[in-house]
């Protein structure tokens, strides 16, 4: 599994002691820190466009060099203050040549109307953002004030570190912290930052919950479909980088290792369709191979050769819309599938017992949804 590299960027008038302090928290979640230091950068340097531009170019060069040497297609970023501005100026200047995975912004001076919708949803230049902000952060308000007064030489700055971003998409999570510009660098939150960046890798508390439910759902399905439990499996797919991938460890009886690396598009098979439409789908094999178009050849080749059927349940908030129950804010798909034979019940989709079973299995994914949704924001497990 490729490692995730986390670039850290300090602010002005500091060398970023917090960058060293966050290292063990990143390591605990399997993340590789890469601390960048552009030296002492004073307030006066921030006021002049040419000194700011030099720092943006420096960061672009550093990140390109990092990508060349590691092969990383995306890096994650933790930045504070001027570092937040630098990271996003570099991203916009690269115009697609540079992509970030997940970003933690602290004491952000990025303009409040930063075009996150285009950057995340249209271009895919960033996957998700955690904006750690404090209403008492007067430094970011000062930066916003300067940006308004200084006219054409001003940086495109704003008080997003105090007041948040304007109309951000769901992938931008605002987190309010008590205090000011320094309190957003609170060591008590470093583990949350690491969890946020590590997602969809699950920390032990969330993984335990998800594993337990996946095992129980698989056992229930096997019993109700009257199948040998050894022939029934379960796994969870979650979105990552515009595709669906199997969530490591959140599976039961998945012993065919090539399947662990299957990559699905949102229209692939029953899994992709369940994710896209927010409704359960089943798929069953009717010939020697799966029908062309269900999965592209390289992904079909990874499937267990004895796989015969899949029931895909979207993991989302169940709501009733136009008298139809659908999953909203879908965070993944739970697949229950089976080897060797298609159960009789699955061959009669209108069967009342099958519908009750599908609904029961679907609704029991609610606690998996809660855990994944929390893990996606970096928050640990909360007691109900």
């Amino acid at each position: 599994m490729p490692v995730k590299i986390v670039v850290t960027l300090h602010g002005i008038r500091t060398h970023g002691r917090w960058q060293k302090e966050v290292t063990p928290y990143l390591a605990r979640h399997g993340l590789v820190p890469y601390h960048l230091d552009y030296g002492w950068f004073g307030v006066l340097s921030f006021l002049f466009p040419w000194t700011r531009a030099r720092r943006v170019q420096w960061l672009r060069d550093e990140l390109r060099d990092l990508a060349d040497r590691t092969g990383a297609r995306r890096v994650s970023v933790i930045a504070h203050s001027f570092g937040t501005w630098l990271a996003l100026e570099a991203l916009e200047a690269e115009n697609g040549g540079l992509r970030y995975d997940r970003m933690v912004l602290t004491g952000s001076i990025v303009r409040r109307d930063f075009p996150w919708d285009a950057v995340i949803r249209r271009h895919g230049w960033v996957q998700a953002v955690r904006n750690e902000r404090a209403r008492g952060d007067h430094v970011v308000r000062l930066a916003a004030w300067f940006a308004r007064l200084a006219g054409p030489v001003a940086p495109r700055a704003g008080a997003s570190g105090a007041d948040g971003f304007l109309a951000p998409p769901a992938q931008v999570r605002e987190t309010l912290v008590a205090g000011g510009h320094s309190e957003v660098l609170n060591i008590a939150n470093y583990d949350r930052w690491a969890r946020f960046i590590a997602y969809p890798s699950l920390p032990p508390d969330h993984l335990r919950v998800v594993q337990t439910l996946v095992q129980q759902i698989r056992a229930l399905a096997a019993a109700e479909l009257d199948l040998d439990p050894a022939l029934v499996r379960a796994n969870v797919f979650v979105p990552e980088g515009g595709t669906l991938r199997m969530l490591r460890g959140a599976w039961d009886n998945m012993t065919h290792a090539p399947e662990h690396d299957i990559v699905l598009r949102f229209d692939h098979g029953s899994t992709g369709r369940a994710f896209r439409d927010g409704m359960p789908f089943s798929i069953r094999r009717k010939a020697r191979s799966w029908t062309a178009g269900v999965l592209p050849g390289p992904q079909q080749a990874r499937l267990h050769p004895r796989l015969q059927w899949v029931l895909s349940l979207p993991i989302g908030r169940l709501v009733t819309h136009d008298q139809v129950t659908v999953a909203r804010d879908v965070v993944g798909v739970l697949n229950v599938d089976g080897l060797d034979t298609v159960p009789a019940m699955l061959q009669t989709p209108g069967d009342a017992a099958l519908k009750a079973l599908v609904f029961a299995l679907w609704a029991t994914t609610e606690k998996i949804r809660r855990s994944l949704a929390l893990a996606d924001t970096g928050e640990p497990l909360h007691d109900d």
Partner: protein
Amino acid sequence: MTIEPSAPAASLPAPETAEITRFVFRTPSTSGVLQRARELLAAAPRELSESFEQAVRGAGLQA
């Protein structure tokens, strides 16, 4: 709650309809689905039945 017969997805190209089924669950009139689902969860671990009830409440599907 009533649930329509699970229907082949109409939008899918013909070669796939033979294999893929979309399950459509319609409300609000009642049927045995919620009751049947609860019955089969009666002997299941507590985590599953709790999870089920939370989802049902969230969707406004009280039987």
